[in-house]
């Protein structure tokens, strides 16, 4: 906030402060009036503020309160489960994909000195072909909307004769449907994370690769031991924000009738005893905001930590703070 102030405005003097206060009061008043006519009146006129509609969600004394929240809790658990699986698999797939693409890129320029000419050509052709294939794979799944991918996975698995197993255990529902959602999310986010990691590895100074080769590491060893760990570290904030995206996209499970929190809320809102879509969606929205806001804050914290870590890597100044303080004293 203060930084923007510094760009656009001078430090306000007494007159500017007075003007700001008056304008603030007027703007605040205008906002209140606007909220009354544009939000409160329409809601109240349509009877959307009545306790009939809000009670089951916010009043513990309401007879439906317990039932509604138990269902919403189940839905939230289903959302979080799918999100956790999708995140873990996306990280795995992303890492594999990034390593694979880097390796294939190096294969393209390899000479195969030991092989006869036609064999060497065939090997190079294979490397190039695989490189193109992974490239197309990445472009298709990164470019297709994730909704479409999820729906596609759900439809194509039975068509191919594959049906994800129902691994539900008592107290831990892992239905077949969840895996379709997880696979769909993994295809998209795995590709995105793969590209994040790949650009992280390619952005590293060339000296890293050269030094690794100089001490005799193979190209796979170089990638796994030298480049990948650094890429994870640099790209950590980007990876965490991608996790927020995964969590949000889990709500798309309603499309394949997976009972995550949004679909549960929708079914509840259609219940003749409730009939409160507006209130129900608002509550689900608040739940998502709380979870994601916390995750975003975590991302910011990690980003600062990473930045600090890099600073301390530079040799510290000669005098420790205590010594300086002692001298000043």
């Amino acid at each position, binding site marked *: 906030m203060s930084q923007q102030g510094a760009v656009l405005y001078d430090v306000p003097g007494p007159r500017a402060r007075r003007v700001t206060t008056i*304008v603030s009061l007027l703007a605040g008043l205008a906002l209140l009036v606007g909220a009354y006519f544009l939000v409160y009146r329409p809601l109240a006129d349509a009877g959307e503020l009545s306790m009939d509609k809000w009670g089951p969600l916010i009043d513990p004394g309401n007879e439906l309160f317990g039932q509604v929240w138990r269902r919403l809790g189940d839905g939230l658990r289903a959302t979080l489960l799918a999100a956790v699986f999708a995140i873990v698999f996306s990280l795995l797939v992303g890492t594999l994909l990034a390593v694979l693409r880097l390796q294939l890129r190096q294969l393209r320029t390899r000479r195969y000195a030991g092989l006869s000419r036609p064999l060497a050509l065939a090997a190079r052709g294979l490397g190039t072909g695989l490189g193109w294939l992974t490239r197309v794979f990445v472009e298709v799944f990164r470019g297709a909307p994730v909704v479409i991918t999820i729906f596609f996975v759900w439809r*194509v698995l039975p068509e191919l004769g594959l049906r994800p197993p129902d691994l539900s255990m008592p107290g831990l529902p892992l239905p077949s449907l969840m895996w379709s959602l997880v696979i769909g999310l993994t295809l998209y986010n795995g590709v995105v994370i793969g590209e994040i990691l790949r650009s992280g590895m390619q952005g590293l100074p060339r000296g890293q690769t050269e030094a690794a080769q100089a001490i005799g590491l193979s190209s796979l060893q170089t990638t796994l031991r030298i480049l990948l760990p650094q890429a994870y570290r640099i790209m950590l904030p980007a990876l965490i924000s991608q996790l927020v995206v995964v969590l*949000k996209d889990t709500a798309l499970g309603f499309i394949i009738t997976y009972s995550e929190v949004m679909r549960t809320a929708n079914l509840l809102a259609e219940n003749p005893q409730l009939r409160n879509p507006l209130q129900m969606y608002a509550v689900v929205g608040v739940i998502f905001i709380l979870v994601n806001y916390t995750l975003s804050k975590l991302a910011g914290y990690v980003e600062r930590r990473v930045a600090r870590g890099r600073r301390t890597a530079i040799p510290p100044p000669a005098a420790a703070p205590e010594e300086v303080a002692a001298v000043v004293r």
Partner: protein
Amino acid sequence: MDVILNNRDAFFSGFLLTLQLCVLAGVGSLLLGTVLAVLRISPVPPLRWLGTSYVNVFRNVPLTVVFFFVVFALPTIGVRADFLQIPGLDQVFTRLGIQLPYFRMAIFALMLYTAAFVCEALRSGVNAVPPGQAEAARSIGLTFTQNVRHVVLPQAWKAAVVPLGSVIIAMIKNSALAGFFGLTGDLSATFQQLVSARGQAAIPVFLAVAAGFLVLTIPLGLVLDQVERRQAVTR
């Protein structure tokens, strides 16, 4: 392959409708996002709070929830996005004027959601301008308007254009959700219809629809790469 050739008209009109949706929602979210960005960098605290809370709400809510809210909850208080029936514009984009509200609602939902990200892209642009620039402008006696017009905005725009582009690319992909919320005839609705109702081979249909979206996103991505590279040189 037959699936695609037999339904090429459906794919083509679906592509055109998705394009219309993206153009309208894109323009709408750029306008709303600019207003929000102005609110967020204004010197008036209540307006700043309004902008900040809007962005925090819409960045953290899934687009699915926004769609549910706009399509199923708002009609209960009589809002059916009718303000988008803009005279003149509905001559060009005929879906705007029709009775069924789903096209308008899809635009409205996409606009509300994307505007938060547009606002953040613009704000990060303004933040990227070194404070010394504006200080120098003030010290040679430029007024606030002159300062913003000639010094801050041109530089902010340069820093904001690439993030803005990625926001728009994301919006194009997000527009596929509209087909699952009542809109008929766009790419994702065509996809669903061919895959589920008519039981067509899912893989070729998926590839065709993905290609439809790639046609929209890849050129935009290439332009952005170009801009980024040019900026890297000028810097």
